[in-house]
Each structure stands twice: as structure tokens, then as C-alpha cells.
């Protein structure tokens, strides 16, 4: 009879371990799309407007999060709050790189550096001079060039905006993957191994 009981107990134990293993694997599989507790902010420039998007990992939008915009010297330019979809947009205040800081609730914070690749005056400058030099002091030509520049820029903006947006989307992190999770568990058991190893050496 005690043997029987022992067997039942052993079976129960095995079943428990199995159940735990299934549970853990479900959680790990489930983990990839739905994660929490890291907040992300990213931004892109479209025309003259800067769009920002803020979300917790697991793609949960940050509602009413504080977005602050700084210039490279640390001067605060403006601030605002994200809407229901975690979006906040503003017109480009100045043509320098922007440092965007998001403060969400409960001590979550992250930042994003938006590089503004501006149409540098230096490159346009000499070309303009050359043309005006060739074309003598004819004012209409210069005006045309300005117009052409504006039209080209507008067309480029229109064409490039989906690409810029998709690049920005790609930069979104999708949260820790299976590699990180398994890696972390590996570290823990590695530490265990180290402790046991030194412990056993002491004993010998």
C-alpha cells in the first residue's frame, strides 16, 4: 500500500512538472506579441511637420503622455500631450536636430533623436551663383530656379513620405524575442552553475 501511494505521488509530481512546462511554453509563445513595461517614442519629418508616435511595448498606445522637444543645446522648444492614439505632431520649429523626450505615466520615460537633413544652403549657394553668372543679371531666371526648387522639393516630399514613414515604422522595436528570453534563462542557470562549481571546489 505505501508503495502504491508513493507511485501515485510520483505520478502527481510528474504531471505537475508537465503542466508547468506547458504553462511556461504557452507564456513564452504568447509573450512575443503582447509585452508591457517599456515605453517607446519615435518621430519622423513629413514636409514641415514632425509626427511623433508613442507606445508601450506590445503596441499599446500612450494616452496623454508628455512630449517635450529640445534643440541640440538642450533648450526646450515646445511641449505637448499625446492623443488617444499616442500621436502628437507639431510644425518644425527650427531646422536643427531635435531631441524628443516622452514621459509616460508611472515613471516610464524614453527619448528619440530626430535628425533633420535640411536642404543645406551651402550646396544651393554656388550653383545659384554660377547660373546667375552665366545668365548675366537676368532676374527672371533666378526666380524660376527658386520656383523649380520649391516644386521639386514638394514633389520629393510627396514621393518620399511613405518611404520615410515605413523606415520609421521599421525602427519600431517589437519587444524581446525568444532569443532574449531563452538567453536570460540561460544566464540564470549559468550563474547557478558557477555558484555550485565554486561551492564544490571549496568542499573538496
Amino acid at each position: 500500500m505505501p508503495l502504491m501511494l508513493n507511485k501515485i505521488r510520483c505520478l502527481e509530481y510528474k504531471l505537475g512538472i508537465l503542466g508547468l512546462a506547458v504553462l511556461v511554453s504557452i507564456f513564452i509563445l504568447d509573450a512575443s506579441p503582447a509585452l508591457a513595461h517599456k515605453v517607446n517614442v519615435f518621430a519622423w519629418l513629413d514636409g514641415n511637420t514632425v509626427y511623433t508616435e508613442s507606445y508601450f511595448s506590445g503596441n499599446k498606445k500612450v494616452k496623454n503622455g508628455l512630449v517635450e522637444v529640445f534643440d541640440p543645446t538642450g533648450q526646450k522648444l515646445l511641449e505637448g500631450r499625446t492623443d488617444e492614439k499616442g500621436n502628437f505632431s507639431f510644425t518644425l520649429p527650427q531646422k536643427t536636430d531635435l531631441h524628443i523626450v516622452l514621459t509616460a505615466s508611472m515613471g516610464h520615460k524614453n527619448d528619440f533623436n530626430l535628425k533633420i537633413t535640411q536642404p543645406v544652403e551651402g550646396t544651393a549657394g554656388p550653383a545659384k551663383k554660377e547660373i546667375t553668372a552665366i545668365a548675366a543679371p537676368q532676374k527672371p531666371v533666378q526666380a524660376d530656379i527658386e520656383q523649380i526648387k520649391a516644386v521639386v522639393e514638394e514633389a520629393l516630399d510627396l514621393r518620399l513620405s511613405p518611404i520615410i514613414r515605413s523606415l520609421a515604422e521599421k525602427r519600431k522595436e517589437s519587444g524581446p524575442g525568444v532569443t532574449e528570453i531563452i538567453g536570460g534563462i540561460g544566464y540564470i542557470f549559468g550563474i547557478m552553475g558557477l555558484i555550485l562549481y565554486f561551492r564544490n571546489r571549496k568542499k573538496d
Partner: protein
Amino acid sequence: MHISEGVLNPQVLITGSALAVIGTAIGLKKLDYDRVPQVAILSATFFVASLIHIPLGPGSVHLVLNGLMGLFLGWVAFPVILVGLTLQAILFQFGGLTTLGINTLNMALPAIICYYIFEKSAKNNNFNLSVFTSFLAGAGAVFMSSLAVALSLIFTEESFWPMAKLIVLMHFPVMIIEGLIVAVCVQFLKKVRPEMLDAAYVK
């Protein structure tokens, strides 16, 4: 539960780190080294738990399982939670390296308080009492951690009560679920491995 970098002021960070170091030292001193594998398994559980997202309630929250750590580990919860949080910070970018101390303190201290309050009654042979108190240990640890997070933010967020209310409210589903998890774990181990219920201490 994980406070990010650059939110807290240095005083809070330094105090948190100092207390976490003390707690970890006590934990390591008390650890029974023959039971390191058991401790490692619990550490891995804690590490993975924060990936389990709970879509209920108003916010984006995840399991913490510090009540489980506390009840099974006592003071050893400190080093275990520190290891878990370090790996979460490095691999998942949850929290941050500078906030490691305060985050460890916020999660481990409630765990130990729960250990001292509920340990005896959770291991009691009375089924109802055991289930009830282990549920309270699981839920209570998350509740206290929520308050601790609000308390750490007091210098940056100014108002304590609205903050505390919000965090506790957001973690309400987590409290219920963790209470249930701890209650089930305790009953299960009581049946199959009662010796695992004792904290991994040198007696």
C-alpha cells in the same frame, strides 16, 4: 513596476541602491547553498514572469510574482529579484541599470514583508487558512510594490495619492491573478514537495 532611467532624482536612486545592496547581502548570507538550483528555478520564473502581459484593466501591466518569491525565498528574494531585474534591464530594456537598486527594493521589500506576515499560516495544514493567506501574500506583495513605486515617484510626480491610486488600480488584475497563482503553487507543493516550501535558509 519598472521605473525607467532618468525619471527619479539622485537621492532616491542612491538610497534605493544602498538599501538594495544591504538586502542582497543579507539574502546571500542566509542562502542555503545546497538549494541553489531551486533558487535558480524561481529566479528564472521571476525573469520570465514580467513578459506575461495582462490585457485586463485600464493599463499595460504584467505579472511580477514577487509574492511568490517572498513566500518561497524570504530574504533570498533580494538577490533573486536583483538578478532577474538586471537581466530584464539588459535584455529587454525594462527599467534601467541606474534604477536597478530602487526597482529591486520596490519589489523585494514587499516580498519579504509578505514572507514574515503570511509564511506560517500559508504552510498551515488547515486548507482554507492556507489558501486564503497565500492568496493574500501574492496579492499583497503587488499591492505594496505599487505603493512603493508611487512613493519613489513622489519627488518627481509631486502628488502621491492620485499616483498611488492609479498604479494600484492598474495592478488590480495582477493582484488577483498573482494571488491565485501563489495559492495554487502552495497547495501543489504542499502535496508533492512539502520540503520546497521552506525558505532556502541555513537553519
